[in-house]
């Protein structure tokens, strides 16, 4: 396993767009090559070394799958880390900025802090694990599109905000904490499990896939119809404990909708 260590030099002002930080782009490269990778700050194209100290550990060059990037510091103002990555690993000790792992195809990202909005937007495979909280639009579709994440897994140990899994087509998103509005809006496949509570708009206009909310939903979407009562339902590999009401919807979208919404009873 080749390891690349990036340490943030100092606090970042204007946000930096760093889609160059991905294992496929690092694999087999020497330190000077990594330092020269281009990133954007506003309209300026700069070298990665402008913001990071680069260290190569276990430099034995190997393929992207055997490449890990370890980043230290608060990266909440660094966007697009791991965008489009296909394999390998990224580990961030602090927080990550917007568009983390956007459109990734494979590989793993671990964020020990929080993640900004659009994490895993339209991702196709691989995994993102966020130990802190996440912002809006996690695993969602780009603005205007109704085709969001199609595969892979996003796990959030904290809470997320609105439009989580918007337009979800495949894959799954598991949130240990709460979400806010419109989680799974326009969902057509895949699964969303919220261990905590949701505010409103859960599954609005969904026509496929599954959402489970283990806490409470403050304002239930009106287009869902009660289907059955299930005990300890299993969604994919996840088993939910307790008694759940199963609904079908969202009938506000049409007659032949196949979305499933589980809500914990009591």
């Amino acid at each position: 396993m080749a390891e690349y260590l990036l340490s943030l030099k100092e606090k970042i002002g204007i946000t930096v767009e760093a889609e160059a930080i991905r294992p496929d782009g690092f694999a087999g490269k020497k330190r000077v090559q990594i330092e020269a990778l281009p990133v954007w700050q506003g309209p300026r194209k700069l070298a990665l070394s402008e913001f990071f100290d680069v260290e190569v550990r276990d430099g034995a060059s190997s393929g992207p799958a055997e490449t890990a990037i370890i980043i230290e510091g608060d990266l909440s103002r660094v966007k697009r880390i791991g965008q489009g990555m296909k394999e390998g690993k990224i580990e961030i000790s602090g927080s990550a900025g917007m568009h983390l792992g956007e459109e990734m195809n494979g590989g793993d990202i671990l964020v020990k802090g929080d993640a900004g909005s659009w994490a895993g937007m339209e991702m196709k495979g691989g995994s993102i694990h966020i130990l802190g909280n996440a912002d809006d639009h996690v695993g969602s579709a780009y603005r205007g599109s109704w085709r969001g994440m199609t595969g892979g897994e996003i796990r959030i140990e904290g809470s997320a905000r609105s439009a989580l899994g918007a337009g979800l087509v495949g894959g799954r998103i598991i949130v240990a904490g709460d979400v806010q509005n419109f989680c799974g809006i326009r969902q057509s496949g895949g699964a969303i499990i919220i261990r905590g509570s949701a505010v409103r708009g859960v599954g609005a206009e969904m026509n496929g896939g599954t959402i489970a909310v283990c806490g409470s939903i403050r304002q239930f979407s009106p287009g869902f119809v009660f289907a059955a009562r299930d005990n300890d339902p299993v969604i994919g590999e996840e088993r939910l404990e307790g008694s759940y009401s199963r609904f079908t919807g969202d009938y506000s979208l049409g007659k032949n909708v196949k979305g499933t919404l589980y809500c914990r009873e009591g």
Partner: protein
Amino acid sequence: MAAINTAIIKNGHIFDPLNGINGDVKDIFIRKGKVVASLSGAEARDALVIDASGKTVMPGGVDSHSHVAGAKVNAGRLMRPEDHYKSVRAKTDICHSGSGYTVPSVYKQGYDYAAMGYTTVFEAAMPPLEARHTHEEMRSTPILDMGAYLVLGNNWFVMRYLKDGDIEKAAAYVAWMMRTHKAYGIKCVNPAGVENWGWAKNIHGLDEPNIHFEVTPRELIRGLAEVNEMLGLPMSLHLHANNLGHPGNWQVCRDSLMIPSGLDPRNKSELVWGETREAAKRKQSVYLAHAQFNAYGGTGWRDFCSGAADLARYINQVDDVVIDSGSVPFGPATTMTGDGPAQHDIYMLTGQKWSNTDVELECGSGIVPFVYLKGSAVHSVQWAIGLEVLLLIDDPWKTIMTTDHPNGGIFTQYPLLISWLMSRKARDDTASECHKWAYDRSSLGGVDREMSLYEIAILTRANPARTIGMAWSKGHLGAGADGDVTVYDIDPNGLDVNDSAALRGKFARPDYTIKDGGVVARKGEVVAAPDGRRYYCRPYFDDSVEKEMMSDVKDWFKYYTVGFANYPVPDKFLKNPVAIQVNRPIEAAAPTRRG
């Protein structure tokens, strides 16, 4: 340093159908932006010389029906951010940045058309109230020469006059409207039907009166076609027929085309005409828009099939119809028309996001994003129909190749359409990737016709120019024509039409796009971005009738939300305007100069 806009294109194989030149090796001379028979020795020494030996030379491409400017196009841009974020073009020293795939920004549109060898593009639908916006966007479009057709098929004033049988006042009104909004031609969209859409209804038969105005599509088509010839506009009535997009609509379409039959096409514009061997003035009294969407058979989506062969049978018998194809090259599109109810139908079919606008006393419009898929039965038949309407109509001078951009597909797919028209094998290859309905529900599989480069030149420049009355300066390379030339890296000798990928690449990125004698694009890259011209017509009608008409207009103007003084498009909205005087009284007509 070459003299400005003076050029010699040497030894190319010229395809200039309006002059009957079919691949002959000749030189083209351009002096100060205009094609000339020859240059003097001194001029030739200073001219830009382009060696086109072993290459195909055509007049600059002309798109006579494309949605590229105005409120509807811009609404399409606004409601489709997902169409933009992956289709971007960076700023260069001479080019503006831009974005958008099916609905590009005006800058990107201009560059992309020019890079593909097109120099003239006409906006297909300009609602009168949105004329300012349309002109603003045309003003910002680089390189291209443009104009726009005024949507009048559901206009309250037109409907009232035609219901009353007052064709003279209708003509005076149309003339005034075209001058007021600086429009080029008359567009008629779903006549009588869009008005009904205000009450959530449509119209399905040509003799069905609409609500309140009680005027029928037949009366509107006939009336506007008559007005068109009374005024003597360069272009004929441009018709978007009723029942667009409905299975079985080919009959209504054919019957609509019969309505103006027998009218004498008269072009009473004051222009200096470039030299052509073929007649450069239009022969048609009706120009049907996007035939593909109006050539459907069957009675519903289950027995949906092509009606193109039936429609083509009629068009093959007559000489007064021209169509553009509105072909479907598959892939993303954004459907946008002034046909509000048709757009609602698409929304109900797809469940996609939908926008709808009612344009006060004039018309309406709708927008729905769309993706044409090879795996879809219906889309595969639409693909076949879009090629059938071009291949089954025998005379290429009755057809124009378009995608009705961005309805059937985007204009940058034109090279793909050309590859299908030129090669049966290319069609068979695509059909084998499509749903089997493509060939089962159409006659395309039995069509052997393969178009020549000469026919492609007719479909993509000569005929669009002639049909819209622009062949005085566009669509040919005779002396006096604008120096708009496209040089493709295609050697007509030994051309393998079955190598689709190579052919597409060559049509997509011509060696040179020359506009007014200056190179604007080279191998698909824009190298110069001059401003184009904006054409519009200034038709005249009887003064006394116009006075009476104006008092009606002022009276009825209370129904508008705009003030009368703010209605016209001021001159400052146009860059390089070219006003074409039409039907001017003899005493008023002084010699006009060409712009």
